[in-house]
């Protein structure tokens, strides 16, 4: 046939209009361009101007169109008509739904506000939802951080005044060696991929530390397939090597950290181990010029890392002495840790040498003049171009808090935090622990709470305890069991509410938290607790209100469902008061706005949850939500975003506020056209940091002044890094018997051990509670890059990529048991048993098995067919994990969490496994729930335009 080349229109019209908003397919919050045709969503791509993603977009983001069209979208408020857990509902109108909710909540507020437990899951509006909860007056509020990454967040705040992800990022453009620990492939999704791409472009070596070599670890130049739960020990061994060789940044340590600060050495004192302070509370160093104790921040002081202070017969030593003494101990030598960590001693030494070489021999100098908080002007900025990132993999262990602290200590010793080429903070961070609130828990009938729920305790006086010493909060956050539970313990709420321990509640109100499925440990147990009845036949947890946009597993357990919109149908603000989207060189915030209206033809429709809270707040007469004349303060969430002021001039959005002479940024009165202006500017606001303020932020007065100007804080708050964390020591002192507030005796030893003011490593607590000989295998989950747990698994496009989740077995276990393709395994933990399909994976720690998180779905949920592979072969490891550790025979409940923060210790899981005959479907199986939305269509060919 002769060659024929048809005419082709290579310039078709792409869309009628582009609407720019913020993605919500995961928590990364990229900017998106939503292409519209005939008023419908036609195509979604990344927004090139956006500070987070600069045009790129991940698989989830591009599949947002299928989330928006999903058949699992809820369509109307639902009132339960069948038994809890059945999924039998009646659609009702919004007035009726809100009347029911008000009827339940109003008496609680009037009589006992703590009987409402309000937990908001993967909420991105926590500054708003916490404001609502605070005005309701319940002490029982938190989001999902307790089972996510509170260890990382809290350890970062207590050590350097910020952590990874939303708090900071590697200096991708300048770093020369990058080390990434235990990342769960998503946090923070696109910026890490973009950063890795930049490193690859520049040929910068990447070292991946993770038992599993997928994703980022697959492209790492060197892979450390570490034994789960031993990262802290590995890091301390690196510290040992650096100290032994004197490869630490002494100038940095003396100027910017508490390494030179004197520690009270008087063993007989009730302040033993606290920092020496002057009468103004300033911690003291020895000035190398005068040899005298001097406030650390005094102009001209040269803090001495070596000198000790002898006073009244007692020698007080600087932090660095204690630190060196601890980590030079042979227990941290590479030979001593190699076997436990599963890393050869020689390799540990080489990594330490490489870190030191790059930090000190490839030093960066930027010609940027800056002035520090002591008034000294420096003509340059010195960079130590090694950088680190870490996330849930090291965080979700019962030793995670101290492991994360150890990593920050390593960064500090190398002088690589907030310097060129190192780790950089993102506004509003850096922010020292003393600039954060402390927890508040005092509730009274018909009154707001006495302050913000969540915060960072400085010592036992900040614990959330009642006068009788019992926990004030239903989740027992901020108690002696986990004093620094800065994000609350959402994973304990249902278990505690069911047990009536510490007290019974009336209404459980939750948002975006799939607690009856992938967001709980002990999933079957949680389902039973949610449906359990008391001697009168009523539910033990009397009332459950739930808000979700989709027909998730949790919907079936609600008595009242308040259907939320999809992310393309709603207003949101990604606020500097909350979890912002700033970059190291700029403060930024953003909005979502309804690029399409939430239409559910033939049904009562859905409403943005935050707008519903504004309405409920007004109906309940909550302060902050009603005007003096009794009318609602906010018509909806958009109204709140525009007009709410947290303090005069400071609102949820920093851009385009009203100043004395026209529009201004940061501080200013509300601007009625603010949202419109955001929309016109691509949905976000950016304020760039001046060049001379962009590094050394905690100590750089130009940055401090810039931040005050923008309204990030009220006065400059320079601080030094806490290698030695004094708040931890205050809890130890209590455990040693000092002070009025005393821990129960059974927790004294644990507090003394685990709340060490210098980072430590101890084996995961489950290892002590479990026979590791019987359960020799570590079991982990990872979140795939193309799926975001319960937000995305029903997505028609993404489920074709991740529709099943075999348990991946390393070669050693695969061969030992003689597994073959298509086989199934029975996997047993001290708590439970599952029977699941297996697959072989060689690039895996030899004692570790793993699977993708939250692919498994319950039959009837998510508008999937009942024979969908997610429901027949998909499974959750959650069934193997308990919220409590196995019984020790001491009659006590020991929670399966970090003893410092209460972080759920998902990754401590130990199992054994054996080959099983294929059971047909993954076990355990559960009865299907009735779908309130039916099932999805049999064919899909989504084309909006012609």
């Amino acid at each position, binding site marked *: 046939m002769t060659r024929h080349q048809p005419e082709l229109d*290579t310039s078709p019209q792409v869309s009628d209009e582009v609407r720019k908003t913020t993605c919500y397919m995961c928590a990364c919050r990229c900017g998106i361009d939503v292409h519209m045709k005939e008023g419908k969503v036609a195509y979604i791509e990344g927004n090139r101007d956006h500070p987070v993603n600069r045009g790129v977009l991940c698989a989830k983001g591009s599949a947002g169109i299928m989330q928006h069209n999903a058949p699992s979208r809820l369509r109307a408020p639902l009132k339960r008509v069948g038994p809890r857990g059945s999924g039998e509902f009646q659609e009702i109108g919004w007035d009726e739904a809100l009347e029911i909710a008000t009827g339940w909540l109003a008496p609680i507020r009037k009589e006992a506000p703590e009987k409402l437990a309000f937990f908001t899951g993967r909420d991105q509006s926590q500054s708003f939802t916490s404001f609502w909860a605070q005005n309701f007056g319940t002490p029982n509020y938190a989001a999902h951080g307790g089972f996510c990454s509170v260890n990382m967040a809290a350890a970062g705040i207590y050590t350097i005044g910020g952590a990874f992800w939303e708090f900071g990022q590697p200096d991708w453009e300048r770093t020369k060696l990058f080390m990434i620990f235990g990342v769960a492939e998503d946090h923070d999704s696109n910026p890490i991929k973009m950063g890795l791409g930049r490193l690859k472009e520049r040929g910068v070596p990447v070292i991946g530390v993770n038992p599993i070599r997928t*994703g980022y670890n697959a*492209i790492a130049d060197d892979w450390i397939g570490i034994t789960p739960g031993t990262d802290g020990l590995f890091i301390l061994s690196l510290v040992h090597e650096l100290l032994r060789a004197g490869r630490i940044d002494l100038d940095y340590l003396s100027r910017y950290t508490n390494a030179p600060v004197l520690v009270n050495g008087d063993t007989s004192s009730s302040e033993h181990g606290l920092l020496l302070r002057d009468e103004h509370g300033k911690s003291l160093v020895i000035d190398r010029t005068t040899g005298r104790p001097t406030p650390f921040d005094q102009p001209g002081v040269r803090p001495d890392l070596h000198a000790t202070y002898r006073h009244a017969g007692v020698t007080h030593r600087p932090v660095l002495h204690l630190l060196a003494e601890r980590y030079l101990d042979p227990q941290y030598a590479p030979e001593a840790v190699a076997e436990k960590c599963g890393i050869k001693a020689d390799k540990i030494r080489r990594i330490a040498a490489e870190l030191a070489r790059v930090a000190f021999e490839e030093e960066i100098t930027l010609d940027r003049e800056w002035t520090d908080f002591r008034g000294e002007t420096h003509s340059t900025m010195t960079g130590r171009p090694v950088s680190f990132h870490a996330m849930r993999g090291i965080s979700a262990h019962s030793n995670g808090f101290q492991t994360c602290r150890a990593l920050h200590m390593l960064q500090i010793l190398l002088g690589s935090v907030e310097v060129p080429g190192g780790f950089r903070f993102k506004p509003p961070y850096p922010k020292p622990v003393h600039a954060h609130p402390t927890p508040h828990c005092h509730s009274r009938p018909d009154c707001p709470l006495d302050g913000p729920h969540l915060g960072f305790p400085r010592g036992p006086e900040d614990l959330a305890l009642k006068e009788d010493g019992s926990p004030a909060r239903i989740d027992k956050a901020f108690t002696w069991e986990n004093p620094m539970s800065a994000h609350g313990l959402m994973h304990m709420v249902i278990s505690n509410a069911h047990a009536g321990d510490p007290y019974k509640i009336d209404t459980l109100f939750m948002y975006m938290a799939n607690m009856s499925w992938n967001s709980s440990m002990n999933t079957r147990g949680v389902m039973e607790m949610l449906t359990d009845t008391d001697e009168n036949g009523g539910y033990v947890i009397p009332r459950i209100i739930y808000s979700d946009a989709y027909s998730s597993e949790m919907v079936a357990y609600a008595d009242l469902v308040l259907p939320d919109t999809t992310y393309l149908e709603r207003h949101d603000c990604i606020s500097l008061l909350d979890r912002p989207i700033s970059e190291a060189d700029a403060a930024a915030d953003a909005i979502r706005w309804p690029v399409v209206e939430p239409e559910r033809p033939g049904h009562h429709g859905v409403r943005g949850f935050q707008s519903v809270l504004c309405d409920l707040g007004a109906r309940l007469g909550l302060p902050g939500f009603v005007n003096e004349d009794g009318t609602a303060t906010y018509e909806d969430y958009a109204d709140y975003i525009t007009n709410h002021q947290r303090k005069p001039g400071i609102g949820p959005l920093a851009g385009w506020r009203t100043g004395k002479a026209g529009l201004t940024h940061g501080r200013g009165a509300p601007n009625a056209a603010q949202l419109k202006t955001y929309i016109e500017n691509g949905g976000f606001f950016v304020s760039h940091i001046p060049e001379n303020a962009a590094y050394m932020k905690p100590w750089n007065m130009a940055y401090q002044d810039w931040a005050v100007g923008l309204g990030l804080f009220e006065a400059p708050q320079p601080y030094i890094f806490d290698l030695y964390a004094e708040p931890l020591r205050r809890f130890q002192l209590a455990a040693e018997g000092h002070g009025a507030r005393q821990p129960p005796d059974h927790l004294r030893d644990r507090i003394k051990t685990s709340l060490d003011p210098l980072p430590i490593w101890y084996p995961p607590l489950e290892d002590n509670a479990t026979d590791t000989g019987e359960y020799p295998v570590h079991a982990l989950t990872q979140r795939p890059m193309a799926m975001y747990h319960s937000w995305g698994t*029903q997505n028609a496009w993404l489920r074709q990529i991740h529709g099943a989740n075999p348990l991946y077995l390393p070669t050693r276990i695969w061969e030992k048991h003689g597994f073959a393709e298509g086989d199934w395994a029975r996997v047993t933990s001290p708590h439970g048993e599952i029977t699941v399909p297996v697959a072989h994976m060689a690039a895996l720690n030899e004692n570790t098995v793993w699977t993708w998180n939250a692919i498994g779905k319950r039959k009837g949920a998510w508008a999937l067919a009942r024979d969908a592979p997610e429901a027949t072969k998909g499974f959750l490891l959650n069934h193997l994990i308990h919220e409590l550790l196995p019984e020790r025979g001491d009659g006590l409940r020991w929670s399966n969490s970090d003893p410092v923060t209460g972080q759920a210790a998902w990754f401590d899981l130990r199992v054994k496994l054996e080959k099983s005959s294929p059971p047909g479907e993954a076990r355990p199986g559960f009865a299907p729930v009735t779908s309130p939305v039916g099932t999805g269509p049999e064919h899909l060919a989504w084309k*909006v335009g012609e």
Partner: protein
Amino acid sequence: MTTLPETTDRKLGLVIDLDTCVGCHACVVACKGWNTEAYGAPLSDQDPYGAEPSGTFLNRVHSYEVQPEDGAAQLVHFPKSCLHCEDAPCVTVCPTGASYKRAEDGIVLVDESACIGCGLCAWACPYGAREMDAAEGVMKKCTLCVDRIYNENLPEQDRVPACVRTCPAGARHFGDLGDPESDVSRLVAARGGMDLMPEQGTRPVNKYLPPRPRDKLDQMEQSAPRLDPVIEEPGGFLGWLDRALEKL
């Protein structure tokens, strides 16, 4: 049988960096989204919420494990779409002329109005890069986003294939591989870019950049950089500290 052009003015194609690809599937879904809405029939999905969901994709990411004789196993993510071969067997096999290679830029396309859905081209393609759309009954394949790269309704910087625009790690590059001075040709030269299955004689335009050698820390000799201890000097660590501080 359909004839290939003797030469093409340009050789537009992709360079895919296997050292950088993290296997995130962003390219897969961006492609699905664009090409569902753009060129020809939408990329349909059968049983999208059921037991055996199966849809048309023009680009898929495969993952392969490599087990070196010594050392840890490695995982390589391998995105695959039409390679726009110079000797494209999918074109020459086409009985209707629906499959063709453009003379101006070398892009291999299917004219859906002429496609009878016989599937011969998919059979002829050694890479498995073509997919029959079950709903439409026509052959679908990578168009190199021919409706983006020249599209005057798009800003100039967006005139690249959807997969390239979206790739978060920057592992995908687009350009003229027929021009030795182009960025993509230089990249191929610098990084040892490879043809996929050259023995097939298809002369693919797309190139793959191989992963850089991994796990060099494991291969270092004992003489590799080590840290020399200072704590064995007089006074141990504190003695060293004092001397070091004097030098500051």
